[in-house]
């Protein structure tokens, strides 16, 4: 087998090789003995569970780590992984079964290479029975409780209801009371068997003794116990799925939205017309002399970068150092020029509109006058120059508009920036590429 795998592995890629090789191995050796798989307790409190799904069919083989089945408990659905490689010989408890006690045999697992036909399954069964009988009485009442099928839940609920009437405490009642209970019993010379307990499984509590002694309301422990029993399980039966929300009226919101709108970020939009005539002249020149076509974008990129290089410092609130220096009357070092990261938007300018362009800030906010008279906004560069449809691109060799949206405190920098870009593109276009 190994040689055939190796021969195969020589052909396959290294990753595949590793996988096939390791998958081919297994730590277990074939012993031709089936193993019973019992219902696993997936949590310490689980006593029974349902089988939501078997992920393998009878006769299929699995590797360690594969999900064999999904177990359903009252809390969650949990995957049960195979601890080692093997074959699912027989499924005993089918999919969909509910209330399967922990420890019940649910399947028979065999090992890869085992002959499923000759597996001895009944022997396994007998062994299991024998094991069940083996449990000695002193091995704590707990084990019996869990091992012997379903009734525990019913019993438990019956027990936990306050059984104050009968004077013979349950034999299953926990034998070791807490120190405070022991102390009370001892100081008042009482016998534990005289008093009915109201704790879990009839456990004797401090309150029971105090009630017995008449130090507290006699009904209190019973009431408390009933309350705990009632709330120990969250009753969700009265909860109904929420009714679908009525669809919001279609027309209503818009006016309100606009009313909310007047809190736009403090941004201002700067605009500046730029003429690309000089750029296209340089382009032509280059084309003629060097035979190189330099695209317009190169000019713009370079102009942007150069203009961004060292811009005057942003007008921002004085720093703590500066305030401190002011207080002491010390000179503040001038703020350093810094690199900007402006990226202008370039849009072709409608020829007719050129004369209206003014160099200055404008806001997208409608003019208060327009709002008052209820007219469409007419002022502001943005309103006038915004193209209606999809843009055609830059108007090569003609008038274009450089626009820039900046936060209010960067306005000064942005203005310098735009001025530089304009200067570079209109007057020193040649220097940009040479």
């Amino acid at each position, binding site marked *: *087998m*190994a040689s055939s795998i190796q021969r195969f592995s020589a052909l396959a890629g290294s*990753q595949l090789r*590793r*996988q096939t*090789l*390791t*998958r081919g*191995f297994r*730590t*277990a*050796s074939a*012993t031709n003995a089936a193993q019973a798989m*019992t219902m*696993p*307790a*997936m*949590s*310490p409190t689980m006593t029974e569970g349902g089988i939501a799904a078997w992920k393998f069919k009878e006769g299929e083989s699995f*590797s*360690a*780590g*594969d*999900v064999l089945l999904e177990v359903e408990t009252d809390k969650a659905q*949990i*995957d049960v992984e195979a*601890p*080692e490689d093997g074959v699912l010989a027989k499924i005993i408890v089918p999919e969909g079964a509910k209330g399967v006690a*922990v*420890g019940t045999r649910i399947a028979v697992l065999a090992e890869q290479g085992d002959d499923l036909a000759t597996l001895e399954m009944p022997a396994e069964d007998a062994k299991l029975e024998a094991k069940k009988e083996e449990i000695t009485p*002193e*091995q704590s009442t707990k*084990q019996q409780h*869990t091992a012997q099928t379903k009734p525990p839940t019913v019993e438990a609920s019956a027990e936990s209801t306050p059984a104050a009437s009968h004077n013979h405490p349950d034999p299953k009642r926990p034998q070791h009371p807490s*120190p405070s209970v*022991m*102390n009370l019993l*001892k100081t008042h010379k009482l016998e534990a068997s005289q008093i009915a307990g109201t704790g879990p499984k009839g456990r004797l509590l401090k309150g029971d003794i105090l009630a017995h002694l008449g130090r507290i309301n006699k009904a209190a422990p019973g009431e408390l116990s009933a309350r705990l029993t009632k709330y120990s399980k969250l009753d969700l039966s009265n909860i109904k799925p929420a009714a679908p929300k009525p669809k919001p009226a279609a027309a209503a919101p818009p006016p309100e939205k606009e009313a909310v709108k007047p809190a736009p970020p403090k941004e201002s939009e700067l605009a500046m017309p730029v003429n690309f005539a000089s750029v296209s002249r340089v382009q032509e020149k280059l084309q003629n002399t060097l035979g190189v076509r330099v695209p*317009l*974008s*190169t000019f*713009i*990129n*370079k102009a*942007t*970068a*150069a203009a*961004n290089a060292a811009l005057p410092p942003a007008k921002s609130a004085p720093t703590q150092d500066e305030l401190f220096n002011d207080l002491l009357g010390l000179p503040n070092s001038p703020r350093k020029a810094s690199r900007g990261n402006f*990226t*202008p*938007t*370039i*849009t072709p300018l409608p020829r007719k509109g050129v004369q209206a362009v003014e160099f200055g800030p404008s806001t997208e906010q409608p003019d208060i006058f327009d709002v008052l008279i209820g007219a469409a906004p007419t002022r502001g560069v943005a309103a006038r120059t915004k193209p209606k449809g999809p*843009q055609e*691109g*830059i108007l090569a060799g003609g008038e274009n508009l450089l626009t820039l949206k900046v936060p209010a405190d960067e306005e000064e920098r942005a203005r310098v920036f735009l001025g530089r870009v304009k200067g570079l593109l209109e007057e020193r276009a040649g220097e940009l590429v040479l």
Partner: protein
Amino acid sequence: MLARSLRSPRLLAAPLRSQFVAAAPKPLSLRTVTTDAASASVGAVPSDAEQPFTVTLPNEVFEAYELDAPSRQLEVTKSQLRQMYFHMTSIRRMEMAADSLYKQKKIRGFCHLSTGQEAIATGIEHAITKEDAVITAYRCHGFAYLRGSTVKAVIAELLGRKDGIAYGKGGSMHMFCKGFYGGNGIVGAQVPVGAGIAFAMKYEDKPNTCFALYGDGAANQGQVFEAYNMAKLWDVPVVFACENNKYGMGTASNRASALTEYYKRGQYIPGLKVNGMDVLAVKQAAAFAKEYAVSGKGPLVMEFVTYRYGGHSMSDPGTTYRTRDEVVNMRSTQDPIQGLRKRILEWGVLTEDELKQVDKEARQLVDKEVVEAEESPVPDTNFETLFKDIYVPGSEPRWTRGRTAEETHYY
């Protein structure tokens, strides 16, 4: 649109690039420790089981911090390889038995399994002597078994039986034997204790070391760094070994740790990162660490990169913070047992049938001892038992308090 494409002009890029170069002079290391368990090369393998031969480990098994990495060549014998394989297989079998017993509700309480991390316990055990000490956290079954206990004692302890390693009174987190200081339930608490054990060794002039193991979760504990400090200050021969299985209780290590290179956590202590899925690499690194510590150079921080297949503990399904695919992939490609198996076959150390025989031996051993452990009686239910085995005989106080005045126990 063109306006949008104003992104990468050369004028802009040039100063940017130079900044980058100035800020990041460190070249990115291409060599990283992998968790590959299988690749290594070997010369001629002798026919004698006890005759050593040289094995060269692959390039990526070690990564050192302020330290010359140990040689990648080590000498092993055929019988050693077989023994390592047997140890790893029996640890895995034992952990699987514990898992199954837990799911039958026979084992209760805490139970942390080391399925997938067997190579670390095995590699360390094969590099040190019984006079050296090991102290680890609560993922301790494999260490307890290899340090000189038995599978029966470990499983009986888990079952709470008299034949348990701590007489059935400790459980999963509290296993002790000679040269093995537990089994510690408090996260990270074993690290300063380990430094103390090593300090005792130095104090008594013994040529031994103590491996203080902790997980990647515990690596963020303050006391770990306190132990680092004292250990380095006094050049204590302790090896701080982090078993990095990539996930703390329910969190990936990179979501919990600012620096996930645990071997550099010592800062002023040299570190060594080791492929913890390669038992030979672990053995070589542990041998190197012992030599380093014993030669008086002070402590060493190690990181064993490994992976656990199961959840953090029995109540963790182990698939909520990682994908099942990841687990399956690690299991199928980088399993330490399969890795060693592949090498053994490739080098012709053992045949497939012989390996099957080893598997069978391990299985039989574990099965037999589990049955014996289950047959062991529970501890006597009297007050005497409660107060027994707490102190080293002769060192008891005059009395120990019980729940009530009447229960006070006088030694």
